[in-house]
């Protein structure tokens, strides 16, 4: 019983700010309401015993990406961001497309039978993730650093105009 209560609280903590992110007229308010959404998602990771992913989610999403988004909002929009119309003309169209996609996914979800594992579910640890990264997924590990390098160099080239 308690787990279901926790689940509903967390989904409320996540979905209400998510609606604000998507519909708020003030761009900074929608950026700041990203943070409770990410903390709600962190709560889900905790219920799924993925503790390291939850810590990283708080550190990177709530701490780095939201700061980056806030920086760009402050640098580009300045004052006009809050008074200007935020939505394009196709709101009903977009809403229909999103609802239709949600309906489609939910139907397929309910149809398929997921091979849920039985029995006691083990808990995870940072050591397991570290060993996985350094032994089974070494290629992903090294290629991700290349992706990071390329995105860093690319972003600097794009953002900085050659004076």
């Amino acid at each position, binding site marked *: 019983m*308690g787990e279901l*209560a926790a689940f509903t609280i967390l989904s409320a903590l996540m979905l209400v700010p998510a609606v604000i992110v998507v519909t708020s007229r*003030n761009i*900074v*308010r929608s950026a*700041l309401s990203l*943070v409770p959404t990410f903390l709600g998602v962190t709560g889900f990771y905790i219920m799924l015993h993925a*503790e*390291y992913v939850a*810590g*990283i989610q*708080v*550190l990177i999403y*709530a*701490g*780095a990406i*939201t*700061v980056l988004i*806030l*920086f760009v909002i*402050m640098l580009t929009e300045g004052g006009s961001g809050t008074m200007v119309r935020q939505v394009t003309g196709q709101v009903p169209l977009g809403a229909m497309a999103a609802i239709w996609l949600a309906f489609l996914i939910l139907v397929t979800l309910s149809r398929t039978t997921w091979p849920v594992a039985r029995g006691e579910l083990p808990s995870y*640890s*940072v050591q397991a993730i570290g060993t996985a990264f350094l032994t089974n997924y070494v290629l992903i590990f090294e290629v991700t650093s290349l992706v990071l390098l390329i995105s860093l160099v690319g972003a600097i080239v794009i953002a900085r105009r050659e004076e």
Partner: protein
Amino acid sequence: MAWLLEILKAAALAVLIFTFLAVVGAMYGVYLERKISGWIQARIGPKHVGPYGLLQTVADTVKLLQKEHITPRRADALIFNTAPLIVAVAALLDWVVIPFGTGFGRVLVVRDINIGVLYFAAMASITVIGILAAGWASNNKYALLGGLRSASQMISYEIPLALGILWVAMIAGTLSTVGIVEAQRGGWFLFKVPPLGLLAAVLFLAAATAEVNRVPFDLPEAESELVAGYFAEYTGMRFALFQLGEYGEMFGMAALASVLFLGGWLEPNLPVWVWAALGVAALATAAYVRFSALRTVYLLRPITALAVLGAVLCGVMILGAVLGRSPVLPSLIWFFAKMFALVFFLMWMRWTYPRLRLDQLLNLSWKVLLPAGLLNLLLTGFLLTVAR
């Protein structure tokens, strides 16, 4: 039913830790700061309200309770009010993982989270959001600029902070704070892999000072620079909440530094003759300051008190060692002694170092601390695996 019991226990602990943080951290942190800065500048500091001015900050808080809250025109009231909450709550959340000591047969920590130090770094990174929101919501050019500069300083110093923590995680082999302190039973990490331990400690302390926006890294809220930076528009109790957040974070960083590098609540197991030598040295300084020409100098009077206290401590340690009691003093005393020593060091730095300009400050982080941290990690990794 078990959930309810757990939640009640957590709420009770939260109230306890919050009052400890608000009273010891914020109120007496401010009092300590004013007394120490007074002592360094050869003046007395608050002494009228209550014995030795102890109730000065209590009086300030009560005064703040009846100050009017002014919200600037066209400011975003919702964000304007939640920003101090974010900063204060983030400072409180740091204390979930810090182990205070051992008592009643178990480690006195709120919860020993498996990814303890990563959790601490994550909570420190949430404060930046509060500062940016405060700077933006107060509709004031200086506050916005102060918020942006303070945020860019804090994010620049988050990486060296993480590298300092990583070094300790590497040596200890675990992320949980209690595990790190247990791993230091053999020897404090400050003295592990001799030169690198000290380098990691200096790296962590510099980043922690910058993370808490204290001098020499407090440019964003420098009086001479930006009219108090991001909390320019905050009056009364909301400003006090920012102070609570800042001092809570400072005490949290000092506590974590003592857990990571000075062995948390562990007692330094020095041989008896070392304690004897320390005791004699302390007594010698006390006698010299007391009876030589320096006794007229008002500034040095607290030094005699400190030296005598040190001598008494060494005496107790020698007595304990002779009687064979392994933990001579209760572990709580060692934890608070180390924490307050680091807090004193942070406050002492405030009145001895000039303020860094913003570009020097950022250059120090990106061009000195970050490469030093990375090389430190690699060198220790090399020594621990390949060279062994």
